[in-house]
């Protein structure tokens, strides 16, 4: 498995490639119009390969969250195209897009992650229940075992620690065996020890289950758990790094900051 990355800021877009869990071609996103126009993404083409853990980094307003939201079918592009597998998201209506998210994509958010009125086990199976699908028992068993929640599965979120809650959220994202899991600063609300716990869990999901994960983060330590880091600035991909370490990422960020 090789990680293939295209950073085409000025060059013409490469031919569409259907391998990889998801990819984008010339993705652009503009908010507002006229004087208040903001370019969140400028012509970004990127590909996330299967079974890899990718981190997206960049300062506030660099477009990293927008990129993730558009790749995941949560938001729509102003121009360009994003694909999950070989499905072009812009061709889908709301219902089809919802079903795609439900069946092929998993999400882990920074906060507001779990339904407070459902217990841990119910939260994990929620996407399957929404789809009216029977869970794959063996798979679910493996995922639940990996969360290491033991006897706390019937507890409500407010009875769980922050780390436990986020492990439930990752398990939920993986419950339907999605093609790709997106994380929006999944450790942003956690202390460093709990963060490490969650990141190790995500790393294990990639290594043991071959899960594809894409995570937005601003923390170099978090990024060091990934296989590959993309650096965004001002709506463009400005750099990348394979097998990152925390120090290397930090240096890269510093140098990016100096460029500005």
């Amino acid at each position, binding site marked *: 498995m090789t990680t293939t990355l295209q950073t085409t800021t000025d060059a013409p877009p490469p031919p569409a490639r259907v391998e990889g869990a998801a990819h984008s071609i010339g993705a652009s996103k503009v908010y507002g119009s006229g004087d208040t126009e903001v370019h969140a993404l400028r012509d970004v083409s990127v590909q996330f390969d299967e079974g890899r853990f990718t981190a997206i980094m960049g300062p506030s307003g660099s477009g990293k969250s927008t990129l993730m939201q558009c790749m995941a079918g949560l938001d729509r592009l102003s121009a360009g195209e994003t694909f999950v597998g070989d499905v072009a998201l812009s061709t889908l209506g709301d219902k089809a897009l919802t079903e795609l998210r439900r069946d092929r994509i998993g999400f882990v958010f920074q906060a507001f992650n779990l*339904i407070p009125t*459902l217990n841990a086990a119910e939260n994990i199976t929620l996407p399957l229940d929404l789809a009216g699908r029977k869970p794959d028992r063996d798979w679910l068993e493996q995922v639940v075992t990996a969360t290491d929640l033991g006897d706390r599965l019937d507890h409500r979120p407010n009875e769980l620690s922050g780390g436990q809650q986020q492990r439930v959220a990752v398990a939920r994202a993986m419950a339907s065996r999605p093609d790709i899991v997106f994380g929006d600063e999944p450790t942003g609300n956690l202390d460093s020890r709990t963060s490490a716990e969650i990141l190790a869990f995500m790393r294990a999901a990639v290594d043991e289950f071959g899960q594809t994960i894409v995570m937005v983060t601003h923390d170099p330590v978090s990024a060091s758990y990934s296989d590959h880091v993309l650096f965004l600035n001002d709506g463009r991909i400005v750099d990348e790094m394979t097998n990152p370490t925390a120090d290397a990422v930090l240096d890269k960020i510093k140098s990016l900051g100096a460029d500005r």
Partner: protein
Amino acid sequence: MKMIQLAARGVRASLGRLVLTTIAIVTGVGFVSGSFILADSLSNTLDALIASDTDTPDAQISLAKLEFGHDDRSIPDTLTAEVEALPEVGEAEAVVTYERLEDFAIVDDDGREIKPGFAGFVVPGVWNGEEQEEGVSIVDGAPPAGIDQVAVSSNYAEKAGLAVGDQLTMNTAVGQRRFELATIIEVADLGRNFYLAFDFPAAQTLFDKEGQVDVIQLTRASGVSTERMVAAVEQILPEQAAVQSFDDLIAELSAGIDGQLTIVRNVLLGFAGIALFVSLFIIYNTFAILVTQRLHQIGMLRAIGATKGQVRVGVIFEAMLVGIFGSLVGVVFGYGIAYGLQFIIERASGFDTSTVIQPRTVVVALIVGLGATTVSALLPSLLAGRVSPVAAMRSEAPSRSSARRRVATGSAVTAVGVVLLTIGLFVGGQGTSALVAELAIGSVLTFVGVALLSALFAGPFVGFVGQAPVLGAGLFGLGLAMPVLMFTIGDGTGGLMFGPKMVVSIVAMVTGASTFITWLRGGRRFGLGGSAGGLAGRLARQNAARSPRRTAATATALTIGIAVVSAFGVVGESLKATQGDVAARAIRADLFVGSDDTTIDGELADRVAALDGVAEVSRIRYNEIRVGDDVEEVAAYEADTGDRLIDFAISVGSVDGLADNGVLVYSDVADDRSLDVGDTVAVEFVDQRTEQLVVAGIFDDNPLEKGWVIDLSVYERHVSGTDDDVVAVSFAEGTDSEALVASVEAIGEQFASPDVLNAAEMTEDVENEANLLIWIVNSLLGLTLFVAFIGVVNTIVLSVIERTREVGLLRAVGMTQRQVKGAIRWESVMVCLFGATLGIGLGVVFAWAAVSAIPDGDIANVAIPYESVLFTVLVAVLAGVVAAVIPARRAAKLDVLDAIATTG
């Protein structure tokens, strides 16, 4: 399935936020089911009462019913023996009864009547002997015999302090008489009532039914069927009597009772409907707020794969759960109301009552409650469907429909409503149900339309009125206006509401003044206390204006209640003004003698006419006639004196032709039938004979008559009896009118004590009736206003929860608890003020339309009851203050750090 489970969990998690919404549903559904339960129970009780009489006859003779009108006919008591002589009849028993219960009472030494307290009557009856009458037993003395002996129930004897052998004075149908207390009896199931009994001949005399019976009860001879007996009796009955088998009679009686109870029930249901309609807006608000509070959660659900439909179903289902719960509690609440009312009736009447819940009641309650919640959650559910998945990560409200579309929808809905109302009010010749439907749907649409449109001016209204100097000066002015109005235009008594009116007036003046002074001191920059003049006031104004739709929806609940209250108030005031106006112009007589529920012996007019100082007396009798196919009201006057006692306001012709087989016709009636002076009309009387009368004159508005007027001599040719309905009296010039009035009253006391009223008192009588009607309507609307009030509390509470973080932030940067409370209080006041203003405006417009639709003869011009309108506004302000008490305290007590940490 999952969404349903989620909805159920959602309800449980938001229990606190749904309490007030549930109360709104419970109140509305309780009113609906209570109306059904009460009507069913009363019907059941009365049916049981009729059926429980085991000693029932087989058939009964009573007066034959007339097709229309009334006649002074009676059944002679000699008929009893004649009927009993028939071989088919086993036994015939004559019965006399007396219906006007207020006529009989023992009078104490000071001339005061001794009566049971609230909801009790003195019931006069005939002594039939201990063995004949179930539940009656002699405690002391011997059975009453003769015209001067009476049996009295033990509770009455005790209250009057009388023992057997005592002499007593009693008012009867034929004036005051002296009696000896012959018997003290014990009567079962009396309740709060007192009971009197005389022997049969004495009862005939004292009930003013000499030689008459009301009913003859028949038992068939052995081996004879009821049908055969009835057929045999019919052969010998005089024209005015009819015989009916008891089974038929009971069926007719039950049908009559059920018919009347159905009318009462439907009127109650109408008011319940208004209360429910109001609660729709509250439910809508609650769910709209719940949706905005759960943006993140809904966004997350959408992100992980819930479809729009699933999200919508979730909201609707949550509402339905609340609806089912609220409806069931509502049925229990309704049962409670009905049971309470029945308990009072049982205590007062002595009847055994039972409270009946029919399955139909529960089904209707559930449909109504569930329907109301589902319909009102529809819009919020659409809103929830529009929440974007990205909302899980951002803080953004879903896009609402555009203002332009809202104006278009609002205007269209209002227009349709107004058109329906106009058709209902001004297009004649429709059936009652069509009319009711047009008016009901028309007003509902108008209210909904105005609610949609009102969001547009909620912002500007609050922006203007919410300014400290405007609000301060305005409140002070309104408060001051109250006593000024009371003592200038009003009579200074304020009706029954003097105390409350003064209280709200003082509260308004004090609050207004303090607000204004705070503003003068420059409080608008640094909030002082909880005054509207301070920062608190500014925040309140901004908050109320921030979500004008919510402010409008909350206010609309109040608007509806207040609109109906003020519409009735204005119509009532207009009625009073018109009647007073006409009466002042047209009444020439000095006195009117009459009674609402009985006729007056013809002898009274003769004796009054004979008094010194009485110039003229005119007898007036009312009945019905048939003209063509229609039954119409007719009044008979003495042609030679009638027009000198009242001004008929004759526009064409004159009263002169009246005596000569003439008739006077009201102008509206004459227009409808294209009648002119000199035309001949065929008029059928109660005796089924028709007479050709000549139109002598056409008259306009006058205080007494609105239909047909004929001469007494013509009337007497067709209607038997010598009783008058009203006797009009005029005094000779220079007489002592006070002494004369006393003399007339003294004569009246010998004839069932009719009311003796002068022109001013006549007007007052009309006013009192209008006031009573307004009072009843307002009481029934009380529940609607309560629901609206709950709605205001509900919205404010939910807004406070929603703004927890914001309040925490304000507290953290130094806002005091007092200022927090002030901000919330003033927001609540502004919402209420907006609702009240809109409500009064709509109410006046509705009333104006209604008055225009009512013939000028009844109500000519719109008159506005300024005092009550002002009172309503001030009460709304006060209600706003009260509504904010709980939410304000809650907000002030928020822990600052927790509040800031709150993420949702």
